[in-house]
Every structure is written in C-alpha cells, then in structure tokens.
C-alpha cells in the first residue's frame, strides 16, 4: 500500500499573550491508501487541532502551525498558497465534523450547498451537478434524495444530516476523508448505521479515512490501525488488533481498562488517577508520568521518544529497556 498522507514532525500551537503555547507536538504518522486510521485520545489531547492543521483550517482560531510537513501524495500541503490549498480541500481531502447542524449552512438549500462544491471542483454544468448530487445522496441511503435537494438542513434528523454531510464531502471522490467524531452526537442505533455506511463506502472507493474519536469501541469496530494521543503527542501506534490485545503504553492500557465492558462483571473499574495536564503547565519529562503507575525517576526528567517495537511504536521508557524492567501490567 502506498503512502497517502505523511505527517512529519507537525507542531501546532495557540497564541496566548504573545507566546505560542504548543498543543500538538512533533506529530508523526502516516495514512496509507485504502486504510482507516483511528486517532484516539481524551478531550484536550489535540486530536481536533491535528485535523484542523492537516486541512489548514486554523485561521478562525488563535492556533498556528509552528513547524512540520504534511505530505499528501508527494506535495507538502503546508507549503501551498491559500489558493492552491483551496483546490485540494473538498476535492482531494474532505472533512466531516461532529455536528452537521453547525457545519452546514442553515440558510442555503441542501441542493445548493452540494452543487457548489461539485461545480467548483468537477467543472460540471448546473444540470449535471444536480444529477450528480442526487446520485450521491442516494448512495448514502437517503430515501427522498430529489425532494431533500430543496430542503434545509434543520428539516432533517441528526442521522440524515450526517448522511447529507457525508454525501456532500464524497461528491468529488476525495482520496482522503478526515472524519472528526462523526458519530459522537448520534444515538447508538443511528451510529451503527453511519459506521457501516462509512465502512461500505471505504470498501467501494478505496479511499483513506482518518477517523478521529474518543470512543475506543468505535475504533475497535472500524479502524485498521490506531494512533493514541495524549497531551498533544502520539504515545502509541499499532494495528487495531495488536493494540487491544497487548497495549504497550501505560496510558493506552489504562484507557482500555477504564471502559466498562459488557458481560465482564467487574466490581470496580480501573482508573487513571489525576487529570490531563494543562498545555500551559506541562510537566517536565514524560507528560503522562504524574499519572502513571510505572513511572520511574527517568520518566520525570526526560521525555521518551517514540520507540519502535516490530511494527508498532510506543513513547515509553519501559520499552527502551524491556529486559531490565519486568513489564507486568496487571491491574488489581
């Protein structure tokens, strides 16, 4: 599989009182063609800032990209002019958001919003664009596609809105779809519909998907590979099955153990003590050390790099010297 998108050493920060406070730090990951990569983390871990950085949509925020490269099919997106970038957005890279109600225009008819992208990128006539839009709406399972073209977004239910959003973003057949918490606002039965739709589309079109979510259940269900983020850093990357079978980073392990699992009859849930650090008061050394039950002296002084173990990586000193330290992750 070829590399579709390569993120190299990407750092993004927020400007506050003249200083730049980094919220995403030296991010490295790759999305291959035709794979679904999950990006998981809790609130404040920098997942959404990452997605906005990739799409270069940070101008409405106090955020700015400090350094790094985002290489899409050989082109560094961060070096493009705004006009050139606009040609990529919507055509090559598309993005769907958590809340379609706030990310679609409430005063434009659905048909008009859909045709706008199609006319702009695919250079179709209005009539062709209309047919193309209807075809796209039908392909995401919208029953009254023709009528919905003349309706507004508020007339639809949450699940239907998300379908419209998906249809709109896929209308120019992008190679990469960034989905930022696409099912978080939906009920479970509707979530199941949307996830199976995304999977079906992905299998048919072979596009790459970056799925950003806080829900490890969703990751386990649809992703091929997972990147776990904590405090703006990648802490672990692995194939989905390997990650759940043998999580290497203590944070990943803690996260998986914190979820109540149906049928497991746990009396007590495992908890990670403390909370996510504030970006302005990052601890020295490993950012997870203050909450980590395996933390050693070294962890508080020096931040570990991403350490490769076979096909996966983990940002933890435990991996650097596996043999010396008994790696026993058993939570009582």
């Amino acid at each position, binding site marked *: 599989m070829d590399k579709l998108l390569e993120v190299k050493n990407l750092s993004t920060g927020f400007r506050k009182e003249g200083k730049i406070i980094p919220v995403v730090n030296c991010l490295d990951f790759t999305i291959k063609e035709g794979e679904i990569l999950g990006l998981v983390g*809790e*609130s404040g871990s920098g997942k959404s800032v990452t997605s906005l950085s990739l799409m270069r949509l940070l101008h409405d925020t106090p955020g700015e990209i400090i350094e790094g490269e985002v290489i899409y099919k050989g082109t560094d997106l961060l070096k493009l002019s705004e006009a050139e970038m606009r040609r990529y957005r919507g055509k090559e890279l598309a993005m769907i958001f958590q809340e379609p109600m706030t990310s679609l225009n409430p005063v434009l008819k659905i048909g008009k919003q859909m045709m706008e992208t199609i006319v702009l990128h695919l250079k179709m006539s209005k009539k062709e664009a209309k047919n193309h839009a209807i075809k796209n709406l039908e392909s995401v399972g919208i029953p009254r596609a023709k009528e919905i073209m003349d309706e507004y977004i508020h007339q639809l*239910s949450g*699940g*239907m809105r998300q379908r419209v959003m998906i249809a709109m973003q896929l209308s120019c057949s992008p190679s990469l779809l960034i989905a930022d918490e696409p099912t978080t606002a939906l*009920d*479970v*039965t*509707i*979530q*199941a*519909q949307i*996830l*199976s739709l995304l999977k079906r589309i992905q299998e048919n079109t072979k596009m790459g998907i970056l799925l950003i979510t*806080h*829900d*490890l*259940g*969703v*990751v*386990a*269900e649809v992703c091929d590979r997972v990147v776990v983020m904590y405090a703006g850093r990648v802490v672990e990357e692995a194939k*989905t*099955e390997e990650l*759940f*079978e043998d999580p290497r980073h203590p944070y990943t392990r*803690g*996260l*998986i153990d*914190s*979820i*109540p*699992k*149906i*049928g497991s009859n*746990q009396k*007590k*849930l*495992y*908890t*990670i*003590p403390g*909370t*996510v650090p504030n970006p302005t008061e990052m601890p020295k050394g490993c950012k997870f050390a203050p909450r980590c039950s395996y933390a050693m002296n070294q962890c508080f002084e020096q931040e570990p790099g991403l350490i490769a173990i076979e096909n996966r990586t983990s940002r933890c000193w435990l991996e650097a010297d596996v043999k010396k330290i008994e790696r026993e992750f058993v939570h009582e």
Partner: protein
Amino acid sequence: MSEEILVDVKNVQKFFPLNKSWFKPSNYVRAVDGISFSIKKGETFGLVGESGCGKSTTGRLINGLIDANGGEILFKGVDLVNLSEKKWKDYRVKMQMVFQDPFASLSPRMRVKDILMEPLTIHFPRMSKKEKMEKVIDLLRKCGISEFHLNKFPHEFSGGQRQRISIARALILQPELIIADEAVSALDVSIQSQILNLMKDLQEEYGLTYLFISHDLSVVEHISDRVGVMYLGNLVEVASKKEIFNNPKHPYTKSLLSSIPQPDPKLKRDKIILSGEIPSASNPPDGCKFHTRCPAAMEICKKEVPLMKNVSEEQRVACHLY
C-alpha cells in the same frame, strides 16, 4: 438489597403541548406515555434509551421538577403527584439529582462551600455554622475534593472535579434516592471510571438508591442491578441486569445491544442494524411504536399496542411476540 420498594411509578404520563394556538387543535408530544416500574431500596435502577425516549422526563417527574399529567408516583407509599407544595419540601430532602453537565449545573458565582452549605441552611435552619462546615468538609473529602478547595469557584475545577462537587451537593442532605441523569456522559473515559467507582462506594457507605439514567449501555451494565429500556415514551422491557444483557427479549433491546461498539476488535458479531429513524414523539406510529423499525414486526403490531407481560419473575416485556 432489601425487597422494600422505595419508588413505585404507576402508569405515569407527561404530555407537552405543541403550537398552542386558538385556531389549531392542540397537539402533544407524548414524552412519557404511561410507564410503570418500581425501584427497590438500595438498588441501582438503570433507565436506558435513545434521545427523545423520555428517560430524562421520567427522572424529573419522580423528583417533582415537572408535574405529571396522570398516574401515580409512590415514594415510600406516599403519592407525590398530588402532593401539596408545602409537603413537597419534606420529600425533596429525600431525593436529589445529579445532572449531566457539571458546567451548567453549578452556580458560577458561588464558592464550593456555599454551594454545599445552601441546602443545609434551607432545610436545617437551626444547625450551627460550625456543624454545617464540618459536614461539608467531611462529605467533600469522601467525594475526593480536599478542604483546600473550599473557597474556590466552579470554573477553577475540571469536569470530573465538578461532577464530584455535584455529587457532594446531592448527598449533603442525606437523601435516600439519587437520580443521576446522564451523570457521566460528558466525561472522558478515564474520568468516567473515577466517578462510577465513587458512586458505587458512596452507595455502599450510605445505602443509597440510584435511578441511573443513561444512553450508554456499557455504563448502565456496569452500575445497575435492574434495567428498564425505553422507546418513544414507553418502557419496552424491564428486567434484572443479567436478563437484559444475556437474554434480551424485546427486538429493540436486542438491536440496541448489538449496536454498541465494543472495544474488542476480535469480537465478530452479527449486528442488527435497524433501518430508519426514531419517529417523532408528537406523531408516534399506531400500535406498537417500534413496529416501523422492528425486524420482527407482524400485522398485529401495526394495530394493537402491546401490553407489558411478565415472561419470567424478573423480566417484563411489551411485545406481541411474547
């Protein structure tokens, strides 16, 4: 857990009027459309369902935050629906609520100590200030907030800490029933597990009864003893946790269970993906309200409303299949 029934909800209804107008016949959202269940003393009763199914309305009805249109809510044998406002004051002490959003449910202008002292001042006017302070400090410590934070405002805390304060506020009057309405839904998993453990510990210590309202079945499975499943204003199934999760009877419960994403990629399940969307509660389908999405719908489902039937001692289902 005793067999004593703390709350008995009997055929309770709540309709919200829509488009009130002189010329149009008024239409109603049937938010809670005749539901019956009971909560035993000391247990955790989980109420699950998707958005708009009436689970939060049910919680508010029990707590008297809104008035029911019909039916009975018995709390220790006393009907709360027809209780006078004056008598309600005695019962409010016995049941407290914890809400979903700890950012919205704590007054931003009150210090932590004032938030916790206020209920004591109202309900125990004769208690001395020192005594009140001792109670507050003791309870906050049990909820994991140190004395050091007493003079802080809610915005100085993280979401998890705020939820701890909300729980302490609910407990300060030593209630018997806590209604937790999506109390952990806004929290990250690592914080969610802290709060769930705290709630379990407090239940053991104070012998609390919980009505735990949530859309998250995994959380409900973890904390509940018995579970009620709601769909469009009706209870479709009530059973012990074991029966609901191992032997669900209602097609809706089955599909709800199969649509939860499980954090285990090796688990290959045959998913029941429901077609269609949840119908509007102002214009629900005739007969069984679930028949429009039900994979097992029959002719009779379109016409007749199924009644709650006991399929075993611990399991009641409203479905024509049984």
